[in-house]
């Protein structure tokens, strides 16, 4: 009798439960409530869209000079003014943004690829292999990479591909640590044991069962890596060691702007605003994603 009563209660309880919500839906709901993060999200979407369609919407040609015009403050014909050669700043900022964003995304992708693979292997295999792999990461962590990137750019010349690789090679370390920690704790779970018992190989287990579960922290950290990478690129370009003319990026434009900021402050202010606002948006979105997807590591 009591058993029957218990089971009815249980059924009633189950029916009273709210509908199941997946981690992603839950995360999305939480993210949507975070106004700053959503603002960042829409701003980034806009910037990325503009970067994609730049060749069709740029008001002037990228190389188009108008030496007689020279540097002019913002006007109806040139919304953000022109530089010393009479080039339209809006056009230059749009094209520069393409390069800055491309460096941000591609270098982060390089870091993501190396870091996730490395961390997943170390965490999954464990034992001595893990100890050696992580000690290597510790040693690399202690190296002053900023100095090495500058050295690389000096020694092998300043090309874009090397820049991607160099920056990616620096930023993968933290990603490897995060993924390794997560994978290591997942490795103990019963469902992994179950997967091994039905004869799945390590590669398939990592891809099908482990990685989907560490996707949250990976997404969060990726969003926070992109602004770091963009900052690094701008830093190098500012010193004249990154992107080289005729290519330009926001860092290059800022560095030009500084040279003539006394006479033509708009040459510094507009590219600076573009970079700062994009970095803001990425940081806000990253913080928001962390709170939404990975509540345990939230910052306070």
């Amino acid at each position: 009798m009591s058993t029957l009563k218990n089971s009815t209660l249980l059924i009633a309880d189950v029916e009273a439960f709210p509908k199941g919500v997946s981690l992603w839906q839950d995360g999305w709901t939480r993210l949507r409530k975070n106004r700053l993060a959503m603002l960042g999200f829409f701003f980034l979407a806009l910037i990325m869209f503009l970067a994609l369609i730049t060749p069709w919407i740029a008001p002037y040609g990228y190389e188009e000079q108008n030496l007689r015009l020279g540097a002019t403050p913002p006007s109806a014909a040139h919304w953000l003014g022109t530089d010393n050669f009479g080039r339209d700043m809006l056009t230059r900022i749009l094209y520069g943004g393409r390069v800055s964003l491309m460096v941000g995304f591609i270098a982060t992708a390089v870091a993501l690829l190396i870091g996730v693979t490395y961390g997943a292997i170390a965490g999954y295999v464990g034992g001595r292999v893990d100890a050696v792999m992580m000690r290597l990461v510790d040693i690399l962590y202690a190296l002053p990479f900023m100095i090495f990137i500058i050295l690389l750019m000096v020694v092998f010349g300043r090309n874009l591909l090397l820049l991607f690789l160099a920056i990616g090679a620096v930023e993968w370390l933290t990603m490897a640590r995060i993924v390794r920690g997560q994978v290591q704790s997942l490795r103990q779970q019963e469902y992994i044991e179950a997967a091994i018992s039905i004869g799945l190989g390590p590669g398939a287990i990592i891809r099908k069962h482990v990685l989907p579960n560490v996707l949250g922290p990976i997404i969060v950290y990726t969003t926070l890596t992109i602004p770091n990478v963009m900052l690094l690129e701008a830093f190098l370009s500012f010193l004249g060691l990154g992107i080289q003319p005729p290519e330009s990026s926001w860092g290059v434009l800022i560095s030009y702007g500084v040279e003539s900021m006394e006479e033509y402050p708009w040459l510094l202010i507009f590219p600076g605003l573009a970079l700062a606002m994009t970095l803001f948006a990425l940081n806000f979105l990253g913080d928001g994603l962390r709170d939404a997807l990975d509540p345990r590591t939230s910052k306070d």
Partner: protein
Amino acid sequence: MWRFIGLRTLQAIPVILVVITVTFFLVRAAPGGPFSSEKAVSPQVKAALEAQYNLDQPVLQQYFTYLSDLARGDMGPSFRYPGRDVSELILQGLPITAELGLYALLVALVIGTLAGVFAALKPNTLQDYIPMSLSMVGICMPSFLLGPLLVLIFGIGLGWLPVSGWGNAAGDKILPSLTLGAGYAAYIARLSRSGMLEVLSQDYLRTARAKGLPEHVVIAKHALRGGLLPVISFLGPAFAGLLSGSFVVETIFQIPGLGRFYVQAAFNRDYTMILGTTVFLASLIVVFNLLSDVVAAWLNPRLRYQFRK
């Protein structure tokens, strides 16, 4: 504690060796010899030059010569400034960069901890939101943007402060120190805020209040010690950041420090200078990471145990 210091130091030595080795071979692998860009010199002059810089020996031998010279503090002569040693140039720039770094660190620590503690005392009020929003601005605003903007406002617009130089005019150290320190002040504000928030909810603080200590003693004597631990651990990495930040700040404000030397050496392809400064700066960073780890372990005994296994 000694065991910790000893083991941690043993870890730092191979890192420094790796730095020296990698840098040396990278610089040697650079396409084009250091003299190839000059106008054609007679073979005799070239041979004499190569002999002077040990370039006529096999690379491995050059490497060991460099190591043994380095052990004696001799980094060789500069390629670009004939007759001057790299170590001499480094020692000339070091005090300036060290002073700049020290002021920037002071700016970062004073503003950062004050803002962070202030914010943590009344979380989720205006007293919290205002400093924390400002710190977000500080984090997103790179120094190469902040510096010129400060110059534009306080140097050119208001005319209050000199726009460049170091130690030549009254107040010319203020803007560079602020520019370099601001980003770190922002990080430290966030770190000390979350550190303090964690500590403030601990039982021992309730005990301190329960035994009737006035609030300012509770905060100053009990909360700060634990709450500022994350800041101490951050100081090592911050030091590395300050050094590379000095590249930019010294370039903007035309300060004749180590960072500017490095950037100029990079442009001039002054290989011995690049090699010397890289080795020097990198070793300095490794040593400072070591120091900050030791201080953190001294303040927080739990950290020492990872070496007891």
